[in-house]
């Protein structure tokens, strides 16, 4: 068992070791070792386009995660309060959002939005001299669809497992509904909301195919990497990959600590 686990870790980290290792390559081609050098790191971080792509990716992933966490939680709470047709329709839509492959979402959103823009833009131009176009916001919108459904499912799982008596106890103590929500329900839901936030952030940060279709001229990190692979990878990209891996490991550790702490608080409160 232990041997198996070691092998799995080797399997998982060997390609990553290659990426990290070749980020120190002095040569021009990513996988052709020419000696040790840190040059690509300084190059990568003085390259305005890489920095721009990184910032764009962080904005998109951050906004997606935030919106998905909020809207997903709202939806989960809202669905607790309805039954019948509304509930069935929403349930179906949530599952469909998860089920429809990203590539179909990307292409159909592009076509639908371009059609829509072509219809509204003449009007907007004549009225206020503005027009709407594909951009960061269309990427965020398309990402939120899938991720809000994921968050909603996570939160609902937690809600169904939640101890009703806590809410009742709180109400018995004459807490306002808002007070009950803030002091009892939200802390209990927090772990799954946070998990959903992290998951959404990751999916959005890593997404290539939806972004490829709906980003307009904006460049995210995966789009930049894709373009780089097409023109021949230089160790510059490996350097960026390494830094992203290290910072995400760091974030993961922080998230882990927060999650554990909030779990403890939740347990302590109950």
């Amino acid at each position, binding site marked *: 068992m232990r041997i198996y686990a070691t092998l799995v870790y080797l399997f998982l980290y060997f390609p990553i070791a290659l990426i990290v290792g070749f980020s120190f390559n002095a040569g021009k*081609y990513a*996988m*052709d070792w020419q000696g040790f050098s840190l040059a690509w790191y300084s190059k990568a971080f003085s390259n*305005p*386009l890489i920095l*721009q792509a990184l910032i764009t990716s962080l904005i998109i992933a951050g906004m997606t995660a935030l919106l998905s966490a909020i809207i997903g939680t709202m939806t989960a709470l809202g669905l607790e309060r309805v039954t019948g047709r509304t509930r069935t329709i929403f349930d179906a839509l949530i599952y469909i959002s998860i089920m429809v492959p990203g590539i179909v979402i990307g292409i159909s959103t*592009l*076509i639908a*939005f*371009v059609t829509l*823009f*072509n219809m509204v833009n003449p009007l907007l131009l004549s009225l206020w001299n503005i027009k709407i*176009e*594909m951009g960061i916001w269309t990427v965020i919108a398309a990402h939120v669809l899938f991720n809000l459904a994921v968050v909603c499912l996570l939160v609902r799982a937690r809600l169904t497992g939640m101890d009703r008596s806590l809410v009742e106890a709180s109400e018995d103590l004459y807490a306002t509904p808002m007070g009950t929500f803030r002091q009892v329900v939200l802390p209990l839901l927090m772990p799954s909301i946070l998990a959903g936030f992290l998951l959404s952030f990751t999916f959005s940060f890593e997404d290539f195919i939806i972004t490829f279709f709906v980003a*307009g*001229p*904006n*460049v995210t990190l995966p789009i930049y990497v894709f*373009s780089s*692979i*097409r*023109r*021949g*990878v230089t160790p510059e990209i490996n350097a960026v990959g390494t830094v992203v891996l290290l910072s995400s490991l760091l974030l993961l550790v922080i998230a882990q600590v927060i999650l554990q702490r909030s779990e403890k608080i939740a347990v302590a409160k109950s």
Partner: protein
Amino acid sequence: MSNDTIKPQKFLEELRRYEKGSVTRRHFLGVTGLGLATSVMSAAVPGLQPRKAFAEGLSGTVNFTTWPNYFAQENIDNFTKNTGVKVNVTIFGSNEEMLAKLQAGSTGWDLFVPTNYTISTYKKLDLIEPLDMKLVPNYDASTQDPQFTGPGTIDGTLYAIVKDWGTTGYVVDTRKVKKTPETWKDFFDAAQGELSGKVLVHDYQLTTIGGALKALGHSFNSVDAGEMAAAEKLLLATKPHLFGINSDYQPSMRNGDAVMSMCWTNDGAQLHRDIKEMEYRLGKDGGEIWADHYAIPKGAPNRAAGYALMDYLLTPEINAKEVKSNGAPSSDSRVNAMVPKEMLENPILYPAKELLSKLEFGAAETLTNPVRAEIMARFKAA
């Protein structure tokens, strides 16, 4: 400059060779130094001097869409240094893909590099703008090779300016291939035979279907139903033997996964420069000659910067660096005067006349023909 002086004897020899047609005009100008004389003269006459019109009132990012391995990073960096405009380079694999993105809209491109045969379609679909020549002072129509300037001008209006030109042949790793194919027929025979599993074709209908058509003795541009069906049959028969279908073939060739690939001039020159045994060949039965153009999409968000970048890259000294870096020859005699002699004599860049004369320019019809598109898609999906 490699030939500041040339002995009269040699000059006459070269002139005679040029007249006989065994060397190209480019070769002649380069070797004899006439190109240099032209550029010296233009430097002396103020009106002919390259004007530095860019750098004023520019800002933001310019979105430049081009092909793989097709620009000098140094030039891009210097443009940013001179103007403060960041250049976002996006790489595409085929003209079809560029057209699809522009048709869908909202690309945000400011400058892109369509190939000769696509320009009339872009114009027809109203996707590119007629060029404002005031914004491209470094362009000089009189120094252009007229062989290539046709497609950029539609109804007397200039829509696109030649970036460079080249050919489509194949690159062979002669360390591993005993008998180098001479024709496209040989190419497909070898792909199905002794080189099975080690050959790449482009992920691009024009050259892949074109190559198969040539192997069967038809025109590179054929849209004849029977001929295309035969080409599809050949491609489908070859597919199981291919290493892959990919227009980014340099990594696989460098890595040794593939030993032969369909190839464009610039990639052939780059591979040969790094690995001497990589040889670029043209099929003796023909193939493609192409010219890529700079064009400005309609509604470019940073139009001024798009023009400025185009003008910068067309400046002879800058353009010469482009040629030296990516390996595709220029159609501008001012540029050729600045390119080293070895390059002008390089048979990869300037193939022998008898090979060149067999080549065909891509035809506009191939871009929009639904059958060619579907054959390529079926070939990939098979």
